[in-house]
């Protein structure tokens, strides 16, 4: 178990968080590069998201006359809650002091808080697009959240803890076991992640086509550093889901001791795993078309069904008589 008074541990946790936040745009850049290659386009550098962020930070934000204080505060709230979420997720090492609050239910709560402010900000200015985007986002998330919770419960029933660090410890100690429930929960989580991070086929991250927008519709009114924070938070969210999936379902390689070699190995493996996941995502996004908005509930129902099947097969097949 982690030693909560170990300054070295806290330092590592801080470094890990900084790495997490810093690497998020890189992940998005990597995915864009992959997609461009797959679609026979000339790709921008994977560092392009950084350049965009720097450019946006350099610009003066323009705020609508009708905007209230919520509109101004929202980027900071959204960004900071997302960073806090990122801080508690084990990225390269598992037994850090932050593990104590790395509870999945807390995570879901943090993400919901960020989403709540995002939706509020979308409606604040009073434009039609903002309200539409907010309502769509809430619809999607209200369907996605049960599926995500169900998938998480499947995991926690196996690991008998809602703490991510404990779950990872459990996975590592039980060795390689083919669990039907994890298979279903993994697929369910992937679908939820796709919906929540606004990827194809639920939302298209590259479009500004009004009628199909979800995430973009809410942040349409933002500019300058506000927009930069919002974009960065979205990139972080993608990274959070990615890290959660690769580290919980395939935790092998993550550092359990705080030695330099273990940490280095942890860093390399998590990078490899994330890059591999990005390949899967890019291939899926290239192969699929965006579905019509009112088919999104079906997509999330499938996610819920998968998670439910995971739960059922855990009870039926893995515990058994």
């Amino acid at each position, binding site marked *: 178990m982690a030693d909560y008074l170990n300054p070295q541990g806290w330092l590592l946790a801080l470094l890990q968080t900084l790495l997490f936040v810093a690497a998020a745009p890189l992940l998005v850049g990597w995915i864009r590069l992959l997609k461009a290659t797959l679609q026979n386009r000339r790709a921008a550098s994977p560092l392009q998201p950084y350049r965009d962020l720097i450019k946006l930070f350099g610009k003066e934000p323009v705020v609508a006359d009708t905007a209230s204080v919520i509109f101004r505060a929202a980027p900071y709230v959204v960004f900071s809650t997302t960073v806090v979420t990122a801080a508690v997720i084990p990225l390269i090492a598992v037994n850090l002091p932050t593990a104590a609050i790395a509870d999945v239910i807390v995570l879901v709560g943090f993400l919901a808080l960020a989403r709540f402010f995002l939706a509020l900000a979308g409606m604040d200015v009073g434009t039609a697009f903002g309200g539409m985007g907010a309502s769509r986002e809430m619809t999607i998330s209200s369907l996605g959240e049960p599926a995500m919770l169900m998938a998480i419960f499947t995991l926690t029933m196996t690991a008998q803890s809602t703490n991510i660090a404990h779950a990872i410890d459990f996975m590592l100690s039980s060795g390689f076991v083919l669990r039907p429930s994890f298979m279903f929960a993994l697929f369910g989580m992937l679908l939820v992640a796709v919906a929540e991070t606004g990827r194809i086929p639920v939302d298209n991250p590259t479009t500004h086509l009004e009628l199909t927008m979800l995430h973009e519709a809410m942040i349409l009114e933002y500019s300058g550093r506000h927009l930069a924070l919002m974009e960065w938070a979205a990139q972080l969210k993608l990274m959070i889901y990615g890290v959660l999936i690769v580290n919980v379902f395939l935790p092998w390689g993550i550092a359990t001791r705080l030695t330099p070699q273990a940490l280095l190995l942890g860093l390399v493996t998590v990078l490899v795993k994330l890059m591999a996941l990005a390949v899967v995502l890019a291939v899926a996004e290239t192969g699929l078309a965006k579905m019509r908005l009112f088919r999104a509930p079906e997509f999330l129902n499938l996610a819920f069904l*998968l998670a439910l*099947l995971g739960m*059922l097969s855990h009870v039926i097949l893995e515990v058994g*008589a």
Partner: protein
Amino acid sequence: MNITHFTLQEQAILIIAALVLFSSFSLLAQTRIISSIHAFAWQGALVAAATALVAFVANQHHLYISALLTLALKAILIPWILHRLVVKLEIAREVETVVHPALVMLGAAVLVAFSYYVALPVEKLSLLATRNTIAISMSVVLLGMLMMVTRRQAVTQVVGFMSMENGLFFAAVVSTHGMPMVVELGVAFDVLVATVIFGVFFFQIRESIESLDVDRLNRLAETDESAAVAEADVAGESE
């Protein structure tokens, strides 16, 4: 017995069993006739794979024959026959509306829980590694039944029927390592004959009601009959 006590092959059986259950759910959710036939073929292939794995793990050689039989019959021959019929009847692209799909799925989940409950005392008695799958096989049977109840299309009803057969076969494989060979051959023969007869029926039904929507097969309903006669009486009086 916990899953960690199983060997990797036994875990693989469980994974396939879970996939069989998933294929049952996907059968329930398919609305296009041709895709439900494909899903059914996948289910047959999965059941055959599970059977072969059980044969390997339990070292039961006769199960290899059963697996081959299932693969030939349920994954290739019957889907092929159905596929050809559907193409011939020109309903391959037809989409069937399912009433309350979400409710059907929920009902399906409840049925799975129910079969778990029913199968518990059975599973307690078994010493086989595959015993936990008995509940799965029973749910496949019940889900096949649910599919037959919720669908109105003759072809999809037959697919549901065949999926029930898959569940029954799977039950025999996982609970007792298969039935005696003579019984299995008999059942396979019955299923094959049934498929052929179903095929004949598709044409007869189409000929008689010009569609394969069995909801329109309602001439013999107990209540409708008297209502129809009453209507005819009224019509006769008014003339």
